[in-house]
């Protein structure tokens, strides 16, 4: 119980320290917008979209369901992480070494790879039966 209380105290102090830093050194108004905004977008846009996809893929034949869902998870993660590079908003004319690649093309190739691996997985499942 003592360690529990001590750890609560440590955690609480770190939270207060962080909040104090935001208020005194950062810009608390815009910070709050991003801080809470990220949760709202996640909870009420991203996850609902994932749930809809979950429902839709539930209509697939049982044998395909796991591979297709796995493919969607990997493809979704790659797309999400790639999105700021694909948009390449950060490119600037004075420095071509920033975002030097064609990220849209990279992403298309990666997604095609995911599809190919999934197709092989499905085919092997079928022939093993």
């Amino acid at each position: 119980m003592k360690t529990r209380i001590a750890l609560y105290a440590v955690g609480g102090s770190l939270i207060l320290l962080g909040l104090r830093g935001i208020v005194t050194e950062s810009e608390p108004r815009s910070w709050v917008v991003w801080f809470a905004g990220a949760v709202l977008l996640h909870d009420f846009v991203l996850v609902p979209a994932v749930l809809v996809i979950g429902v839709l893929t539930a209509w697939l034949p049982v044998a395909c369901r796991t591979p297709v869902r796995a493919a969607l998870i990997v493809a979704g993660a790659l797309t999400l992480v790639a999105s700021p590079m694909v948009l390449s908003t950060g490119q600037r004319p004075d420095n071509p070494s920033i975002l030097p690649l064609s990220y849209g093309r990279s992403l298309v190739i990666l997604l095609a790879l995911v599809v190919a691996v999934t197709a092989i997985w499905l085919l092997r499942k079928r022939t093993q039966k």
Partner: protein
Amino acid sequence: MVRQPSVLGRFSSRLHDERTASWLGIWLGVSFGVAFLTGLISHFMQQPPDWLRWPSRPVNLYRVTQGLHVIGGLATIPLLLAKMWTVYPKLFQWPPLRSARHAVERGLIFLLVAAALFQMVTGLLNIAYWYAFPFFFTVAHYWTSYILIGALIIHVVNEWAKVQRTVMKRPEDGVDRRAFLFTVAAASGAVMLTTVGETFSPLARLAVLAPRRPGVGPARLPVNTSAVAAGVTTTARKPDWTLTVTGQVERELTFTMAELRALPQHTERLPISCVEGWSASGDWTGVRLRDLLRMAGVAADAQVRVESLQRGGPYRKSWVDPPHWRDPLTLLALDLNGAPLDLDHGSPCRLIAPNRPGVLQTKWLHTVVVA
């Protein structure tokens, strides 16, 4: 019995359970711990308190810690999203608040989730050079990390018993968590494999999603601040450029480019290790900083400041503490990869030292001040 609203019964996947949440939680705990530690290293390397002296060796220490921070951070994104999907039904628990204690608990969970998402989003946008937020990245990201770690400690204390209960025993419910966890790990792996080459150059060709590519840039080395961005395109090209060593010295010295080139030259292979996680090595040639300082006559524990032709900005000058300026690898470089420095790499002369973030490898030098 607590009355359940119908929405809870609608989450049909049996993966929304304690055991899945526990495993993902353990992985997340480790990666947040690593991110916090490596983040603090980066912070205090750039703003060292008085009692702290960073060593100049191992040469690649900062390169590894910051690579771990950024690539590990990116790999954490799928883990975090998977974890929050797993526990999502709890968002709709009924009644929403059972007691004051429960309200505090949920408030802390909000802080944990918000801080975790905030770090991922701002970090990802920062390495993509997309400054979409009005606040200064480092300050907000730094302080938010304390909120995240504080809320995480409390969360771990609260959930520890559950984690032990579920992880220590073999489940007999026939739910296929393994496939799900493998998939999440595969997503993290795919993110890492397609980005880690921006700092681990043997895998550079795989880094198709990384914002940087070692080998791409003037003299095959990427650039962070260009001469145009720094506003030095005229001053750095002046033929009458000189380098001055001044301050607490026995003899003030001034060198033209020809005089610097007449001093003993050394070539060292050292990396630029950027705060944004990418890194790349080059063969730098120039004069050892320690040779210049000995010629000028300085105390062994002198603090040295190098200053750039840049007019302003936080990185116009940087401190070089004794471990770094005494290190024979620390050069005032004139050449990179066998040719005179490109303007964007800091021509006519730049600092290059081991185990130090790229922002502190000051470019377009004109003065060395001994304090």
